[in-house]
């Protein structure tokens, strides 16, 4: 898996592909949500270009009905996951046949996360609430569940290694890698599809 965390670039829709622009028009996002969508595609394109060179020019990064990104147009299937927060974008890419998830959580959320985690009944496993939240979001993406799945879920998070946590209660257990940085936390996971 290729994992990058990049700064969001200015949301220039003119740098999207034709298919991406059409897709964006259909989504009818406005304001910062629209900017975020564009910035995510541009970040994905930068990472794709770094990994695939000129072949990346022919790829589009669209989104499924649930908002999950997907790469189209290439000869070889690619799995992708994107996460935006605090002006940074995490991009996870891998050759197809895998499920990928990545989540970045900005420290700006640190103040309100303890109350949210308490509400969800999550305790322990990691001292860093941003890392816990990133792992939960990562598990949601991996299982393609909506945020509503968290309410009433028998959510449990247990340490599974030095930088790993196991998230239970959202379908099959998800094992996520987690790292805590000064300004954000990052969680990611990859498993066979």
């Amino acid at each position, binding site marked *: 898996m290729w994992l990058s965390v990049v700064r969001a670039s200015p949301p220039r829709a003119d740098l999207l592909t034709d298919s991406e622009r059409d897709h964006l028009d259909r989504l009818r996002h406005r304001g910062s949500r*629209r900017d975020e969508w564009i910035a995510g595609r541009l970040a994905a394109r930068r990472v794709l270009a770094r990994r695939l060179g000129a072949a990346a020019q022919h790829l589009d990064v669209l989104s499924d009905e649930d908002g999950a990104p997907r790469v189209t147009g290439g000869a070889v299937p690619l799995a992708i996951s994107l996460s935006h927060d605090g002006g940074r974008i995490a991009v996870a890419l891998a050759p197809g046949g895998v499920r990928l998830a990545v989540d970045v959580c900005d420290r700006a959320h640190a103040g309100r996360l303890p109350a949210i985690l308490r509400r969800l009944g999550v305790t322990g496993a990691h001292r860093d609430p941003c890392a816990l939240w990133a792992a939960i979001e990562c598990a949601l993406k991996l299982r393609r569940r909506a945020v509503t799945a968290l309410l009433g879920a028998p959510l449990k998070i247990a340490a599974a290694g030095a930088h790993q946590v196991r998230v239970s209660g959202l379908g099959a257990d998800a094992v996520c890698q987690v790292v805590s940085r000064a300004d954000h936390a990052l969680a990611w996971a990859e498993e066979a599809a």
Partner: protein
Amino acid sequence: MIEPVDIADLRALIITAAPDPALARPVAGCGPDDPLDSVIPFSSVIVLGVVVAVEDRYRMRVTRQMLAGALEGGATLNRLAAMIDAARADTPAAP
């Protein structure tokens, strides 16, 4: 008699639940039926922040079904207000 939820209160609550109030400011002026996800990045952490704030403010419990009903087709201020009103009246939330 329970007063209906004040949409202005709800706007303030959502802006407060966002990590960056400047990014969430469009909620202050959006239409009550505008999908919030098209106006601001209505991310999971903001959704859950709003749930916690709603539960504190209105002394109620938001269930998965209630939240799913409010988010179906895109959460709007009116849908969230209807969810809260329905819960406070102890009737199922209308979609």
